[in-house]
């Protein structure tokens, strides 16, 4: 399990409220943003995903679901990457409240 230090968000929420707001990436609603907290996957997969941009502190946006409902397309680091639910379940994100419908960078 890889943990980030403190995420550097604009208006700082308190550390207590972060832990309450950590969810699996697969739970992130469409159009919602999150901040990657950590990945809990086999080392090789984790490595691959991190090089594709899924590193702690990175901002991720759930962009759309495939027509069949799965996989889901995420915008991260200027790229669009589709992950199956089984993979997204092992990526943990902080949800950013009240920050919808804007592109992650």
């Amino acid at each position, binding site marked *: 399990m890889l943990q980030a230090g403190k995420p550097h968000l604009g208006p700082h929420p308190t550390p207590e409220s972060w832990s309450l707001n950590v969810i699996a990436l697969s739970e992130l609603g469409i159009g919602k943003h999150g901040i990657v907290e950590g990945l809990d996957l086999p080392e090789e997969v984790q490595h*691959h995903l991190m090089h594709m941009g899924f590193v702690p502190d990175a901002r991720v946006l759930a962009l759309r679901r495939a027509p069949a409902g799965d996989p889901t*397309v995420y915008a991260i680091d200027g790229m669009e990457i589709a992950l199956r639910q089984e993979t997204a379940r092992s990526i943990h994100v902080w949800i950013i409240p009240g920050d919808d419908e804007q592109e992650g960078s």
Partner: protein
Amino acid sequence: MSSCCETPTLDLPIEPRIPGAIRTVALVGPPNSGKSTLFNRLTGLRQKVANYPGVTVEQRIGRLSGIDRSDLTVIDLPGIYSLSSYSEDTRVALDVLHGEMPGTPAPDAVLLVLDSLHLSRQLMLAAPVLALGLPTLILLNMSDLMEARGGEVDSLALAGELGAPVAKISATRGTGLDAIRHFLGQKSELQPPLQLPVMGNAASYRQWASGVSTRTNYRAPLSSAVSRNLDNILLHRVWGPLLFLVVVITVFQVVFSIGQPLSDGFQTLLDAMGAHASAWLPAGWIQSLLIEGVWKGVSSVLVFLPQILLLFLFIGVLEDSGYLARAALIADRVMRTIGLNGKAFIPLLSAYACAVPAIMATRTIENKRDRLATILVTPFMTCSARLPIYILIIAAFVPNRPVLGDIFGLRACVMLGLYVLGFVAALVTARLLKSTLLRASPTPFILELPQYRLPTLRSLLLRLVDRARVFLHQAGTVILAVTLVLWLLSHVPFHDGAFPALAQSFIGRVGLLIEPVIRPLGFNWKIGIGLLTSVLAREVIVGTLGTLYGSDPATQHLTLQTALRHDMHIGGAIALVVYFALAMQCTSTLAVVRRETNSWKWPAIQFIYMTVLAYLAALATNQGLSRLFG
């Protein structure tokens, strides 16, 4: 350009070595950075494609063209995200960069290709590459697009940060290549390895890369609104799958209904050429060897070309435009239920026309295990070469009785059943493979959706030439050898100084010899010979049976259908088509599987598995039907 038609060998080194000059340069970059476009741009057709020894990773080596130095070797390494993961691609890249790959010259310089649309992420690869200590030129590819979309970067500051020259280029348009020319003209001096303040893990690389992009005033371009808007339609809940079906049906329809007549026409042309040539040759064994052995072997390979080129034209357009990734996304849910991923859909579908181009099309599947599983199940799909024997047997043995009204008769029902049988066998095999030989696939389905782009004619044409060359060179040699062996086996031993009748030839004797083995399937020795000769290609059995029944005085005057009806029971007849639905009767496919998996192990496993499965299924069919019809 003359080199394109010869066997593309590269004898290295050919030029006398200029001391200190760069002779070999490696292209390094992440997937989708435009590395291969640049490689094509730099080498044109002066390239060769092979496999690195022992792995399925493709080795692309070329000679520099269009730039003053034509003695330079360019190596296009597989796309990689880092130098520290354990994937096959990364291992190959590392071995080549360290000069430890047998048969590949050690590079003395590196061209690092980065996609400037996503520079802050792509820079993660710069740290480990620069740490190698080779002279490196950093190429910010697609910089024209980046600037057009409002992005910017201070390339001088970046060069200062990285301690290496930086150039903005566009591989697609061919701009900025002067910098490469200049860089390659210089003396190669081993650089002191760059001391970058980076620890070797992804998080710290990432942090470093973000820092560098901030200090060099990198501003990422706005992502293209066109792509998002297109995806709103192409990935729409309703329109997405519908348009997907339209695309898929079009590909299938074209490869099957235009490719097939093209192939048939090509075959007729090649046969006519053979007939023409045989008129010039004195009758006898030389004529037979050249025409029925060599020419037949060569044309049995050539005949696949129209379908291969058509399919690859389509795949090229789909892949270069960015739609293929969307298609994989849509198909993934369905393909997952059979243990494969969405990218396997297009190859499996095209296998209904022919397994050979389909297996070559599995290259779009990056996950090695999924690719292998797809390759192994592809020959179960009902290809067009099975149709002649299906049509012959069904017409001879199945009464034309209506099943569902007048349209859907018993014959169509049996035909459909054979298609379903092949599909079910593929499905079961895929599941079996995923739970045994190819279990524990560590790489999940991770799909990058590139932005939509207009495919360029140049890249499509290069792709077609590339595939045609690979197919003819690799598959051609194996198929030619097998054809010659089969020709020889069916023409020896001589009988009174002349060729023996097929039944007396070596292959005929083997056919007789195996009769006890195939009798439980309801097959006689003539069918046995047909099974042996059709190992070359499935449709060959019809010709063989024609020859055998045609030369037998008892059946000479009958049509092949009638002769078969006199000679076989319904159980054996249906068992025969079941056998053909499941057996690996195709040398071209075996040759292509060997080439794509880079070993004889997988085609051997595939051949044995499919033959055993076919035998058992045919046995069950014959026993069951014999009991049913008494």
